[in-house]
């Protein structure tokens, strides 16, 4: 176990956490997109707003964490990847930018037309980013990033393994989001909304499982090193992923959503970890190993110091935030009906139906 391997593991831990937290975040765009027209979709969109509103910015810092450890700890391979995979990285970035901006704009938009525009951009771009990040993963895992960079600009990320990576990334995101949104809706007390989401989540879960296992066949020829790693070292993780995936479907079917979230997270974490274990010890498969790619020793130690600080500072704070979002005050009623107006507590993103009555002739008008 070298220091370089430790740093690589710390970086990969970031990949797993980003896949879970950022993934649930990205995936919610699918439900937002498919929620229906303005009237029917209002409940789902408000739920999405409420669920990811407090946490989306924190969720996406994990991507920065990954990038920074990569370019600090393994600089040459970082440059190799960014020069080769310029196109998918730029497209993923465009998705991240558009979704973050339009999510914030939609929340404070004035008219339904504006909200629809921002909402469509948010939802669409939410699915673009995981797809292209998945193709990047596929490119690295199938040995298509040369050590000196400037690899094939198109074929490096348009190939069977990258396609599997991209589709898998989208599917796992949508699956995670489905389970989490369903759980949120149920906790907020909206049974009808939860039931609707539950059915969609079940469908998505089956599709995701199919993609995982079909993908294994597709990459068998295209990425032999990875494939061999998956079949040998990573096999237990794939088995765990399958079991956890089935468990999630069963638990969701039984409406035991709180447990379903845990098994869904376990399933996705197992798939992602399986990828990492499968391609160990390569950082760029068949080209550069983790130890060869490592930067200066003092810097690697410095990174471990930062990771230790993150464990002490960030994890408790993040835990606090996530815990708060699960408490009753914060869950409130994610969707509003006139019957719940009186019981409703004020919320910045959620509206107070009572505010409509407070507007009126009594309000002071601005001077001309």
């Amino acid at each position, binding site marked *: 176990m070298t220091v370089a391997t430790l740093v690589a593991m710390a970086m990969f831990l970031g990949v797993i956490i980003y896949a879970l937290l950022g993934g649930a975040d990205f995936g919610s765009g699918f439900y937002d997109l498919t929620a229906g027209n303005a009237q029917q979709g209002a409940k789902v969109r408000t739920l999405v707003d409420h669920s990811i509103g407090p946490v989306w910015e924190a969720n996406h810092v994990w991507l920065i964490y990954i990038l920074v450890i990569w370019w600090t700890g393994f600089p040459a391979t970082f440059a190799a990847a960014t020069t080769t995979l310029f196109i998918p990285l730029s497209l993923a970035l465009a998705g991240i930018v558009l979704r973050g901006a339009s999510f914030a704009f939609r929340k404070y938009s004035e008219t339904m037309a504006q909200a629809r525009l921002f909402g469509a951009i948010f939802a669409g771009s939410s699915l673009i980013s995981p797809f292209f990040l998945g193709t990047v993963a596929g490119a690295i895992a199938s040995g298509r990033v040369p050590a000196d960079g400037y690899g094939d600009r198109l074929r490096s990320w348009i190939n069977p393994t990258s396609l599997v990576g991209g589709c898998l990334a989208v599917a796992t995101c949508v699956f995670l989001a489905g389970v989490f949104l369903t759980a949120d809706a149920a906790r907020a007390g909206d049974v009808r909304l939860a039931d609707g989401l539950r059915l969609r989540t079940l469908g998505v879960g089956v599709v995701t499982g199919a993609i995982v296992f079909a993908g294994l066949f597709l990459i068998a020829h295209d990425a032999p090193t990875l494939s061999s790693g998956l079949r040998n070292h990573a096999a237990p993780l794939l088995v765990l992923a399958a079991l956890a995936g089935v468990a999630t479907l069963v638990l969701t079917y039984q409406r035991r959503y709180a447990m379903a979230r845990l098994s869904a997270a376990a399933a996705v974490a197992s798939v992602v970890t399986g990828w990492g274990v499968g391609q160990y010890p390569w950082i760029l498969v068949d080209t550069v190993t983790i130890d060869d790619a490592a930067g200066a020793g003092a810097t690697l130690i410095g990174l471990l110091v*930062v990771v230790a600080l993150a464990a002490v500072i960030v994890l408790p704070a993040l835990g606090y935030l996530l815990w708060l979002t699960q408490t009753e005050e914060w869950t409130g009623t994610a969707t509003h009906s006139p019957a719940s107006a009186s019981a409703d507590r004020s919320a910045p993103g959620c509206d107070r139906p009572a505010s409509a009555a407070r507007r009126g002739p009594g309000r002071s008008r601005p001077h001309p």
Partner: protein
Amino acid sequence: MGLTDTLLLASSGEPPGLLPARQQMAVSLGWHIVVACFGVALPTIIFVVHRRGIVRNDAVALGLARRWAKVSAVLFAIGAVSGTVLSFEMGLLWPGLMGRFGDVLGLPFAFEGLSFFVEAIFLGIYLYGWDRMPPRRHLAMLVPMGIAGVVGTFCVISVNAWMNHPAGFDIRDGEVVDVNPWRAMFNAGVGLQFLHMWIAAFMVVGLLLSSVYAVGMLRGRIDRHHRLGFTVPFAFASVAAVAQPFVGHVLGMRIHDTQPAKLAAFELAQTTESPAPLRLGGVLIDGEVRWALTIPRLGSIIARNSWDAPVPGLEGIPESEWPPVNITHLAFQSMVAIGTLLAAVAMAYWLARWRRRDLLSHRWFLRLVVITGPLAVVALESGWIATEVGRQPWTVWQVLRTVDAASRSSGLWWSYIAVLVIYLGMTVGALLVLRSMARRWRAGEDDLPSPYGPPREEAVP
């Protein structure tokens, strides 16, 4: 860049990625830096009014805090995504820098990542915790955000300072060796550069906020809400504006020792003169300085703190190492001129207030305040242009030329165009949303319900 410069560059056989990389970095950095100022300074400013609202039971102050919080939600969102762009661009645009020096300059970025985490987490708690947490605990959530603002600024400026004052490594036989990332992070230039930027953040945010309320007062909305909304940010900005020239002066004096070519460009000095005059304005055309107002001896006084110490001239530097002189000179002097003006406006207001004169009742002063906001932004951008363009042709001073740092990909023009389009869209979107929020608040709405929630009863006039 001047047209001649552009054509020269384009025809001199440089990598095709160089020009679009520089332009894209300039646009994305110039855009992000303004929004980032809000991330750094706004939590502290909100803290003052929020605390006043709780401790003194001041409903107006609390109302300001609520509104500024909602504004910060929009601004921090676009600040975060534009910052993500910069992270990607380090690799996409500058693989020559990152591939070779990533392990030298990366550690401050790692610490910056930590501060982003803290900022994002506590922002989420603060924004969504209104009326859902005990008030004092809710207020306390701003403190980590303020601290994260300081640490984050220090870290990102540390990288820029390292580019100006490289440290923490050696080069032997073309290889980067003996890397000490801590010495790189705590290099000779970081203290003053950090202070300069952190103070600038408070100037930009304080003046932009107070100019919003000055506009309201010009339109006849003179009430406690506007007065407090003006005074608190303006107080922050005033302290910053008065301190900044001193920090800048000390910083400027260091440049003589560390980056003489940059100083020569700042001062438009072709030859080393002692005592050196100050050239206000002016451009260098075909080896001749034109349209400058030359004041004898003032150059030595301002740049070297001495009656006659020499200011280095470009003649002592090989032409292949000259930065683009005119852009650097004009940007630098714009920054100083605006900075001086802003300090004067701040001092005038508080001096008058001490003498019991309320300048806010004079429309000419309100109009002046209105333009200080945008002027502060111009000063910020001018300063960044001066220091970044003035460092050329180096990306890492005397170590790595920008030509060698840039990506060799010719497809960067597409990326640049995409950045221009997306950032234009984000600017328009942000302005539209912020203005509509302001309009609805003026019309008396306190909450701003999302339109895809329960149906609205009436449209806002």
